[in-house]
């Protein structure tokens, strides 16, 4: 399923060039699904099918990149707090708690405005991404690392008293090496599970924030910003919101399934809740 979606988003690009996804033909605006435009056209006559393909790429890339940031911050904070303990632990955990105390969507909105419009567009792999893509990746990463940090910290707390760690320390191995060579590989399973589920959350977060008009800015399409303004076309042009919405649902659903399966496979002790 997930593979199919990836093929859809990335393979579809072989059929339609990107310029086609942004090609406007104002005389064809809001035409319903037809043989030429299977998903219909949007308010300025762009092909919705092609836009869901390119939007999907951006959405998936945002999901993956955001999770990389999330994991980086989460692992670092969790590892440092768990390994060193003491004052550092208290400080980092207070920050974590403070971040957790504000619902993610509020943080996202405030952060989106904080960074909004300040990052120029970037050129990568021969394509142009609006600066807002970077903004979104960063803010999703920065607002979602807290759970992962807690998991990693708990793992570190339990592992650091293990014999193999004590042995390593006795032989004079540096702290850095102990953290990244010895403890981290042993706590990788819950991290992978959490990161997988994090991708789904990041895609959802992008969709919410773009839906509110604060996310990735046009003409770069994402599944989320294709839904912006959908309220006004609820009745007159349901294809505008139905297809991107459905694709988000399918993606999140299949990633959640994958995460669930991984959890069962990697970590037989934990129970799915």
């Amino acid at each position, binding site marked *: 399923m997930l593979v199919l979606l990836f093929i859809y988003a990335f393979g579809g690009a072989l059929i339609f060039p990107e310029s086609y996804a942004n090609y406007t033909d104002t005389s064809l605006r809001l035409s319903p699904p037809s043989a030429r435009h299977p998903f219909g056209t949007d308010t300025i006559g762009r092909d919705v099918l092609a836009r869901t393909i390119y939007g999907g790429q951006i959405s998936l890339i945002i999901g993956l990149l955001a999770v990389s940031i999330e994991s980086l911050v989460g692992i670092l904070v969790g590892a440092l707090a768990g390994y060193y303990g003491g004052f550092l632990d208290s400080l980092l955990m207070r920050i974590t708690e*403070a971040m957790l105390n504000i619902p993610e969507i509020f943080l996202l909105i405030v952060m989106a405005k904080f960074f909004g419009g300040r990052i120029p567009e970037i050129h990568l792999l021969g394509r142009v991404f609006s600066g807002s893509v970077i903004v979104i990746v960063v803010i999703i990463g920065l607002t979602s690392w807290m759970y992962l940090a807690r998991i990693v910290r708990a793992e570190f707390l339990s592992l650091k008293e293990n014999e193999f760690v004590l042995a390593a320390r006795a032989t004079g191995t540096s702290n850095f090496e102990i953290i990244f060579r010895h403890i981290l590989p042993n706590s990788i399973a819950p991290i992978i599970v959490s990161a997988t589920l994090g991708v789904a959350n990041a895609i959802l977060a992008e969709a919410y924030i773009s839906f509110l008009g604060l996310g990735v800015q046009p003409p770069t399409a994402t599944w989320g910003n294709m839904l912006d303004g959908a309220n006004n076309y609820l009745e007159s042009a349901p294809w505008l919101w139905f297809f991107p*919405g459905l694709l988000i649902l399918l993606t999140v659903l299949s990633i959640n399934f994958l995460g669930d399966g991984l959890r069962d496979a990697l970590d037989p002790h934990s129970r799915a809740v």
Partner: protein
Amino acid sequence: MGRYIIKRLLQGIPLLFFISIILFVLMMNMGDPVATMGGRRVTRASDYERLRRQLGLDKPIYTQYLYWLIGNDWTKTDVDGDGVAETPGTRRGVLRGDFGVSLVSRKPVLQVIGERLPNTLILMLASEFVIIVGSLLVGVYSALRQYSALDHIITALSFIGYSMPIFFIALLSMYIFGVLFKRWGLPYLPTVGMFDPQAGKTTAQVLWHMVLPVLSISIISFAAYSRYIRSTMLEVLGQDYIRTARAKGLPRREVVYVHALKNASLPIVTVVGLDLPLLLGGAVVTERIFAWPGMGRLFLDHVSRSDLPVVMGILMMIATAVVVFQILTDIVYAWLDPRIRYEK
């Protein structure tokens, strides 16, 4: 126990300080509240400078935070722009219960929030009620009928519900129950607003307009809750004392509803306790789609005009509620489960 509560409360205070500083810094750089004051025109240069001075926005960030926190009635400010601070401040600061005045509506923040809070609470309490009742029923049922066809269907559906973006379910339900039902001549549900102005704000109207938003909010959380209940219930049902109770010949109904459910509901208390304070913020996206005049929409409206006092007020209220509810949840948990004692 008493000492434990006091200790937890004392821990909460620096946490809230910390949150307020993070948020304040973020928000100071968020946008320019004076920029949109000119209505359809760009704010005039002369007004711009004056307003920033009068509203205290020209002060360095730490001064602004200090005024926000403890007020400025102990000092004087320069409001006429001659460089001499001559007017005593009037703000009393958050610590003394003064959240300031909205930069947009010029009303006190507490009044602005107070006008919207009931609307959000009505919506969210109703949703929470539906979620808890519904997920208890479904969760218990699927636990008792584990691996039955219906259990599988419920599991699959809850997985879909869990993955559903709320705007998609909201748009879909609006389209089906509002638009399509109307088109088919069936009784249809209202899609936006809190009541029909022609009919006035009656209880029936509010309930009727609540159906779709409550449905949308419920489906998302319902899935997670019922899966959770199912698994705790399964765990409890497998334990010795249940088998003993059953072996003693107690009626199965009593075993399930009195003994098992009581114990299975413990972890649920935690989940609910941690979820409740989030209700204050309302569902930002849901309120936006259904044009529900609650806190979520208030937040969006005021964020878009960088109205710092109101936005800070909303966020600090939620953060405080989260801290308080965490403590409350721990207490209730201890009270429900005699095995737990907070000795320290």
